[in-house]
C-alpha cells in the first residue's frame, strides 16, 4: 500500500530503485523514525561538538562555594554536590556513553557476524555445535557475566566496551546465521561456485551485502541496549569511575540526592531517555522500512 502511494506521490518508476533507495523512501514516510533520527543527530552533535566551546576538562572543575546550586543563567543545569557544572558533566557523560555504545556495538557486530556467518556457512555438525554453545550462553544471567568480566579487567573503562560487546553478540550471531542458511541455498550462490569462486569470495561478495540490511537494523537496536548496560554498570558502581562522568553515574548521583536537588536526577535522566527513545524509534522504523511484510504496511 505504501509502495503504491509512494509511486503516485513521487512519480518514480520503482523498478529503477535499489533496495536501499526504496527503504530510505519508506523510512522518510515514518514520522516517528525520522523524529528519532533528527533527535539522535542533535544529541550527538551537542555532546561531541559543544564541549569544544567549554573550558578544558569542564566536567571536573570544582567550585566548592557553589555546591548543589539550582539551575541558573550561569549554570544551566545547576551544579552537583562538589560544585561541578552539571551541564558540562551531562555533555561529557554523553560523549562517554555514546562512544561506549558504538564501540561495544562494533565489537558485538564483529564477533556476532563472523560467528553467525561461519556457523551458517559451514552447516552440519559444526553449525549444530556452535549454535548449542550460543544456547547455553543464553541461559547464563548476563549481569553476572559482565560483572565477572569487569572484576577480571579491574574496572578498566577501555576494556569495558569489550566486556559488554562480548555478551551482546549472541542475538546477532543467531540472526546472521539464519540469514546465511537461507541465502546459501539460493541459485546464484550455486552459480557463483560453479564459476569457481572461493568460499571467502562467496561470503564477502555475495552473502555479506545481502544480509547487511538486517545487520544494520539490529545494530541500531543494539546501541541503546549496550548504553543501557553501561549505565546499569555505572549505576551500581562497577562501570565508569568518578571523576569521569557518564549518564549512568550521573543518574545514580541524582537519585541519591533527589529529595534536595531533583534537577540533578532530571537532566541526566532526560538526556539518557531521549537518546534511548530516538534510537529505538529509529531502529523500529528501519526494520519496517527494510522489511515491509513485517508490520502494518
Amino acid at each position, binding site marked *: 500500500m505504501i509502495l503504491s502511494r509512494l509511486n503516485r506521490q513521487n512519480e518514480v518508476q520503482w523498478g529503477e530503485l535499489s533496495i536501499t533507495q526504496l527503504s530510505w523512501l519508506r523510512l522518510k514516510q515514518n514520522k516517528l523514525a525520522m523524529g528519532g533520527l533528527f533527535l539522535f543527530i542533535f544529541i550527538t552533535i551537542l555532546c561531541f561538538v559543544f564541549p569544544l566551546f567549554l573550558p578544558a576538562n569542564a566536567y571536573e572543575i570544582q567550585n566548592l562555594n557553589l555546591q548543589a546550586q539550582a539551575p541558573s543563567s550561569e549554570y544551566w543545569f545547576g551544579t552537583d554536590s562538589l560544585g561541578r557544572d552539571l551541564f558540562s558533566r551531562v555533555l561529557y557523560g554523553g560523549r562517554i556513553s555514546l562512544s561506549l555504545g558504538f564501540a561495544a556495538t562494533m565489537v558485538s557486530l564483529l564477533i556476532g557476524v563472523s560467528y553467525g556467518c561461519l556457523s551458517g556457512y559451514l552447516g552440519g555438525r559444526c553449525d549444530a555445535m556452535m549454535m548449542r554453545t550460543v544456547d*547455553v550462553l543464553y541461559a*547464563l544471567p548476563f*549481569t553476572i557475566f559482565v560483572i*565477572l568480566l569487569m572484576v577480571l579487567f579491574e574496572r578498566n573503562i577501555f576494556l569495558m566496551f569489550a566486556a559488554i560487546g562480548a555478551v551482546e553478540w549472541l542475538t546477532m550471531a543467531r540472526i546472521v546465521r539464519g540469514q546465511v542458511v537461507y541465502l546459501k541455498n539460493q541459485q546464484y550462490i550455486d552459480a557463483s561456485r560453479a564459476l569457481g569462486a572461493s568460499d571467502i569470495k562467496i561470503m564477502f561478495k555475495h552473502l555479506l551485502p545481502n544480509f547487511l540490511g538486517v545487520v544494520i537494523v539490529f545494530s541500531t537496536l543494539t546501541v541503546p541496549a549496550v548504553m543501557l548496560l553501561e549505565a546499569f554498570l555505572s549505576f551500581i558502581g562497577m562501570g565508569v569511575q568518578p571523576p569521569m562522568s557518564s549518564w549512568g553515574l550521573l543518574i*545514580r548521583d*541524582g537519585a541519591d540526592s*533527589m*529529595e534536595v536537588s531533583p534537577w540533578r536526577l532530571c537532566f541526566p535522566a532526560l538526556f539518557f531517555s531521549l537518546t534511548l527513545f530516538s534510537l529505538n524509534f529509529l531502529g523500529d522504523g528501519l526494520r519496517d522500512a527494510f522489511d515491509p511484510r513485517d508490520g502494518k504496511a
Partner: protein
Amino acid sequence: MWTFILRRAIQIPVVLLAVITITFFMVRSAPGGPFSSERQLPRHIEANLNAYYGFDRPLLEQYGAYLVQLCQGDLGPSTKYEGLTVNEIIGQSFPVSLQLGLAAFCLSVIIGLPLGIYSAYRQNSVFDYSLMSIAMIGICLPTFVLGPLLSYFFALKFGWFNSSGWYEPKDIVLPAVTLGLYFAAYIARLSRAGMLEVMNQDFIRTARAKGLSEWGVVVTHGVKIAIRPVVSYLGPALAGMVSGSFVVELIYDVPGLGRFFVLGAINQDYSLVLGTVVFFALLIVIFNLAVDVILGLLNPKQREL
C-alpha cells in the same frame, strides 16, 4: 503429549550442567579471590581459610565435590556472609522476591495483554498510535530512571507511599510498578503483533460470516492463537521477575534475592555466585518447560516437535 514433556525434561540436566561448568571455571579463573580485599590478610590466616573452604585442593577435585554436593541439594557455605549457607540466603530472600515478582507479573499481564489486543483491534486509530508510543517509552525507560522518578513523585511529593522499606503491604506497590511496567509494555507490543497477524486470516472471516458476535470472534477465536508469542515470552520474563532485580531492590530497599547476584559477583563469593546462577538457570528451564506444555495445550501441532 507425555513423551513430548519427557523429551524436554531430559534436556534440563544437560543445560544445567553446562551452565554450572561454565560459571564454575569462569568464577575461578578470575584473578583475586573471596579473601582478597583492601586489607591484606596475614598469609597463614588466608591459607587456613582456603583450607577450611577446600579452595586449596585441585580445581577439578573441587568441581567434582561441588557437583556431588549440589546433587544433595546443598549449595555450600557463603564466604562473605559468615555463618550463612547459600541455601539459607536464598531461602530468606527468595520469598520476598517471589511476592514482588508475582505482583509485577500479574500487573504486566493485566495491563499489557488487553491493551495490546484492543490496540490491534483498533489498528491505526489514535488509540493504537498513542498506546504503541507509550509502550515504546515503557520499553526504553530503564528501571533506574523510572524508579527514582516514581519514588520522587508518589512517595516524596504526594506522600501516598513510603519511599523505601519493606514493612507494610502497600510497600509492594511502587517496586512492583517499577519492575512490571517494562514487561507490560513488551507484552502489549507482542500481543498486538500476534493479534494483527491472526485477524487477517481466513478462519476469522469464516467466524464473522457465520454471524458470531465481535466479542466471540475476537476473544474465543482470535486471542487463543494470538497469545502464543506472549506465552513463550512469559516464561523467561517470569523467571526474570521472581529472581529479583538489583536496581529495584536498591532503590526501594527491598530485602530480595536480586542483590545477591550482583554482590556475590563483586565479592567473588564463589558459592554464592554459583548458587544464584544455578537457581536462576533452574527457574528458567522450569518456566520454559511450563511454557512448552501450555503451548502444546494451545496448539496440538506443537506437541509433535
